[in-house]
């Protein structure tokens, strides 16, 4: 019997692939443990309420300006770009409804989450990464305190609570941008615009948008904290943690967007 046939042609590549696969599943396991640890520690006293409030303020302040500008521009641009298509059918009057559906259902939570991934996620990743590298997290551990509760739980709770608020704010700023464009071109009044904005929206839209923002906020917080808390290899590790936090959070936000849209579609 010829046993040489069973020998793979590229044993090194196969071994490398096996190692990568094993590393991937081990990382998934570690992330799972990290999330479970968050739920085990976040809702058990003693609570770090002061730090949660401080982190909420940090998250809000860090993203406020950028979100205001981006939200406004998204509203103006989306309205401006949608007008030609609608005007072909003489349906410019549907513009407020179209803008409100697009912004409230999809754009506001998504744009907020993407900006927060960049601003907040990277900041959390870098901050915790730097604390890990300079042994500040070890110093907390050896002094009998619980660094996970103080550093991770507070930040994840802060992003989970603050992103929905920021998302709602983005929605209104974007609608205001849309209104300015509509009133300039069609002369629509504020009252009429607002009536037309809320007419097509349902309770499901608001709930879905809120759930989406909560999920996005949790994702941004947990990814940033995971990357930072587990960083190593000195200053290089800090950069990797910040970068990894942004890329992974953005990637997951898009995947979650698709899943939540599918699920909410069943309730409409």
């Amino acid at each position, binding site marked *: 019997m010829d046993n040489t046939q069973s020998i793979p042609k590229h044993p090194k590549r196969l071994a490398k692939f096996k190692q990568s696969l094993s590393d991937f599943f081990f990382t998934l396991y570690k992330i799972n443990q990290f999330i479970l640890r968050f739920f085990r520690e976040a809702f058990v006293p003693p609570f770090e309420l002061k730090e949660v409030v401080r982190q909420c303020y940090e998250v809000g302040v860090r993203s406020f300006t950028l979100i205001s500008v981006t939200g406004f521009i998204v509203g103006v641009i989306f309205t401006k770009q949608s007008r030609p298509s609608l005007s072909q059918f003489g349906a410019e009057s549907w513009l407020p409804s179209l803008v409100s559906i697009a912004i409230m259902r999809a754009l506001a939570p998504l744009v907020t989450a993407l900006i927060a991934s960049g601003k907040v996620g990277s900041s959390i990743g870098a*901050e915790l990464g730097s*604390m890990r590298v*300079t042994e*500040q997290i070890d*110093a907390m551990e*050896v*002094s009998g*305190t619980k660094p996970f509760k103080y550093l991770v739980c507070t930040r994840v709770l802060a992003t989970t609570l603050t992103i929905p608020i920021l998302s709602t704010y983005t929605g209104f700023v974007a609608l205001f941008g849309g209104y300015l464009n509509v009133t300039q071109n069609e002369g629509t009044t504020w009252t009429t615009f607002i009536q037309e904005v809320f007419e097509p929206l349902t309770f499901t839209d608001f709930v879905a948008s809120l759930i989406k923002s909560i999920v996005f906020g949790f994702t941004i917080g947990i990814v940033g904290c995971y990357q930072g808390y587990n960083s190593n290899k000195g200053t290089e590790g800090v950069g990797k943690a910040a970068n990894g936090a942004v890329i992974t959070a953005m990637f997951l936000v898009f995947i979650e967007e698709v899943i939540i849209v599918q699920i909410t579609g069943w309730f409409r």
Partner: protein
Amino acid sequence: MKKVAVQADHNNPVISIRGLKKAFQDYAVLRGIDLDLYQGENLVVLGRSGTGKSVLIKIISGLLKPDEGMVKVFDQDIAHITEDELQKLRIRIGFSFQNSALYDSMTVRKNLEFPLVRNKRNLTRGEINTAVETVLDAVGLSQTINQMPSELSGGQRKRIGIARTLILNPEIMLYDEPTAGLDPITCIEINDLINEVQQRYNTSSIIITHDLTCAKQTGDRIAMLLDGQFQRTGTFEEVFNTNDSRVKPFYDYNFIE
């Protein structure tokens, strides 16, 4: 400040290590270590860089897990206690990090309050302030109370790091390279502070260093870590009264002979 000779209680080891082994991937750093730290003594662990000195105290404080062997602190085996038991034990152990590891987003006051308010939840504001002022006074840096760590010098950071551990009144102190990167005069000040802490707080200490002046000024006993094991243990004179080519260069370099 001249070191006062301390009579260590040799019947009462606060730390007892037997057959401790630790490896990183294929490299065995600690290869079966036996060590006792007795009540009230300063034990200096000397050794070349990368010989596992810091690894040893990280295992004692529960930051790293041993591969083999037994590490008992106050008769509790570090490797076999629960997370809650470890946390309670850590309050009795102070750890001074090589780079001080001060929380750089907090003032000196907040750095000192951080472990205190989280371990002793019923303290009043007045009691917290008194505790902070007392330890700051003990390390001679009362004027830095509202400064940020970035505004402090290397020596001041070391002192604040030590003050942060003292605020919990530890029974054991672990110093990781306390004089690394400091000028000779600040080194002497830190050595004096280590001796003062031993007398004032009645601590038992392990001091990790490769600075022989620090070893001579602070150590009641010296343990030389070579090839992953303690090869020579005793007083400073006993350890260095040798022609061992692995030990002699240490003495020659530090005392320029």
